[in-house]
């Protein structure tokens, strides 16, 4: 049995999306900037995708900028806005548990002379709003708070955070990295006071190398790549038309009957949590209620290094991730787990199980059975 529980790393492409991408790639391959019919045809796909995305977010079509993925969207939002708004101030705020796409971009901006405040989180992995209030100052130009944490699945109080920021000074821009939240939640930036939102295609059963940044029309931004001035010169480079078409379709498909899908995932999550609690010396990081993402479960299993358990599960056809897959190549201990104050025995002994709408109860049961079998065996042999 093959059980893919690493959907926060990436997801399987919807077959319909794959077919569309292939069609656009091989048949409707025009350059949207071309003046002839082939170009116009290609442009239609982009407009179609914009239409789909703007409907989902309830924003304007022209407020969607296509990128190569979540990382580029984050880079564009942070670097593009920090530079464009430098005259208003040089202070940026984010949280300590962001994805490296945010954290490393912020560090880069620090080298360029910006001051950055990294907000602490509570034991549930939610940013401390009191700390946000204290951090805001006259110099603040941008605040970035992720929607769902990718490692422990905590849902951030984005609405409250945006309200605090806008209440302090409506000119301060509010960005959210919604790579793990888009496709799981109905997110309406205009209602929440979000000026910018990053999302990625391959986390929602779309193609890799695709993503977008929602950019409120009034936001001042500078490009970070230069070239043929496509996408109103915010993001030069010939649009990835097949990818964009696929992204649009994937978004539409994942939001179809979203409530039903999410409810199913919540049931599975509860079932899994109940099963895991039967294993001794385990813990679940972050929250398990409505304030946690429906698809992410972070479990600490004391006494077994996460890498070993990961490979043991792999042998049984179960694919999971240790910490965050994006950062797992360098086996540094997770900053997020430290941030939420996880106890020492779990720091290098935590696995992330992440589901999708395709996850079944049989798969969860099989995973639990495998854990019941593997964990005691592996605990027998430890390094001392």
């Amino acid at each position, binding site marked *: 049995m093959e059980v893919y529980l690493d959907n926060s790393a990436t997801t399987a492409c919807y077959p319909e999306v794959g077919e569309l991408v292939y069609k656009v790639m091989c048949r409707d391959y025009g350059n949207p900037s071309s003046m002839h019919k082939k170009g116009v045809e290609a442009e239609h796909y982009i407009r179609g995708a914009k239409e789909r995305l703007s409907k989902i977010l309830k924003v304007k079509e022209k407020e969607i900028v296509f990128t190569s993925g979540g990382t580029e969207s984050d880079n564009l939002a942070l670097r593009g806005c920090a530079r464009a708004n430098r005259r208003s101030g040089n202070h940026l705020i984010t949280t300590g548990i962001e994805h490296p796409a945010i954290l490393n971009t912020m560090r880069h901006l620090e080298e360029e002379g910006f001051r950055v405040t990294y907000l602490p989180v509570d034991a549930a992995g939610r940013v401390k709003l009191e700390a946000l209030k204290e951090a805001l100052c006259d110099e603040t130009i941008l605040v970035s708070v992720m929607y769902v944490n990718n490692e422990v699945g905590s849902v951030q109080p984005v609405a409250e955070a945006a309200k605090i920021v806008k209440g302090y000074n409506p000119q301060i821009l509010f960005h959210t990295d919604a790579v793990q939240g888009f496709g799981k939640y109905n997110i309406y930036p205009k209602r929440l006071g979000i000026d910018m939102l990053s999302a990625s295609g391959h986390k929602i059963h779309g193609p890799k190398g695709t993503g977008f940044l929602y950019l409120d029309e009034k936001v001042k931004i500078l490009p970070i790549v230069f070239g043929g001035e496509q996408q109103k010169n915010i993001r030069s480079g010939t649009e990835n038309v097949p990818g964009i078409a696929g992204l649009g379709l994937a978004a539409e498909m994942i939001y179809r009957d979203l409530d039903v899908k999410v409810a199913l995932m919540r049931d599975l999550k509860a079932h899994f949590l109940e099963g895991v609690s039967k294993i001794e010396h385990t813990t679940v990081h972050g929250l398990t209620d409505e304030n946690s993402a429906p698809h992410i479960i972070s479990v600490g299993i004391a006494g077994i290094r996460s890498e070993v358990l*990961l*490979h043991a599960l*792999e*042998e049984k056809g179960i694919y999971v991730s240790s910490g965050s897959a994006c950062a797992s190549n*360098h086996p540094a201990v997770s900053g997020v787990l430290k941030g939420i104050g996880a106890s020492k025995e779990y720091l290098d002994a935590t696995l992330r199980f992440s589901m999708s709408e395709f996850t079944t109860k049989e798969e969860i049961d099989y995973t639990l059975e495998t854990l019941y079998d593997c964990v005691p065996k592996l605990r027998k042999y430890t*390094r001392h």
Partner: protein
Amino acid sequence: MEFHSFLIKYGEIGIKGKNRFMFEDALVRQIRFVLKDVEGKFLVHKTYGRVYVDCEDGYDYEETVEALKRVFGIVGICPVVRLDDKGFEELKKEVVSYMGEMYPNKDLTFKVEARRSKKTYPMTSMEINAALGEAILGSHAEMKVDVHKPDVRLNVEVREEIYLYSEIIPGPGGMPIGTNGSAMLLLSGGIDSPVAGYMIAKRGVALEATYFHAPPYTSERAKEKVVDLARQVAKYAGPIKLHVVNFTDIQLYIYEKCPHAELTIIMRRYMMKIAEHFATADGCLGMITGESIGQVASQTMQSLAVTNAVCTLPVYRPLIGFDKRDIVDIAEKIETYETSILPFEDCCTIFVAKHPVTRPELARIEESEKNLEKIEELVKTAIETTEVIDVK
């Protein structure tokens, strides 16, 4: 300058008496092997007791030289300009322009060394030397002749065509692969073992390799890393048959039954045994390890002796007297270093004790091993389930 051929100079092969042809054939074979992925068409041939690589137009010079520099047995690679014999006057012109183009910074001393294998040529070698030297002096006033220690020796070989060459690019030396049998390399993911394999291969020995992995304690990526290392060594050593042994059960069994401090040393003894099994089966004449005295607990003189005691084949340890720094230098040169330092756990480090024995006694280790009643069975299973990968 466009070169049409390479003259391959080889050292030790020349002195191997009646075996010479065998060494030359091995050299030609290995040159063909490394050139098969290089852009261009090549004819590798032996003529008048020399090995030449003739290149068709449009080949990639840099790539060709890089490939030839990986062929053991080659001491020098001379890029050759090949000319049609259109008479001596024409030759003079060509030689003058060759010197001008090769050495634009003309303040140097030179000597012309002509050889005439086409005895019908109307001039003797001495006459050619003198006339060409004069022509060069006449056109490049800054160049001077020095017959004893010239900066440049211009070789002019007169045969059906005329060959000009003056540069020697150093080769790696050593002996052609396959002229000295084969040996089994114990390949880990570390820095040392690929270097050890390289060094023995350099003496003409073809390689096989054995790698021990321990899933789930070691990952698929750790195995891939070892395959990558083998592939890099194979660029020099030719194809390598890599045996991938699943060592988990043996390791856990030893862990369960023997004193923890002795785990590594006992493990290594079983690794040697298993590797030797494959070595013997495939007719290898020895085993190769990357051990170096005192580098870690399992490589003290006592530990080496205890490990060695299980083997009947000779175990070659080319790095035995090397410091880490020296090993790293070679690893960097042969481009295995970057792969070697990728941070994947290998099976030697998983359960390593805090204080492993550093002065094991053979008798005591053998005593501990008596607890391993089931081990023969586990070894048998490990051998039977071994995966073989042909690395090219």
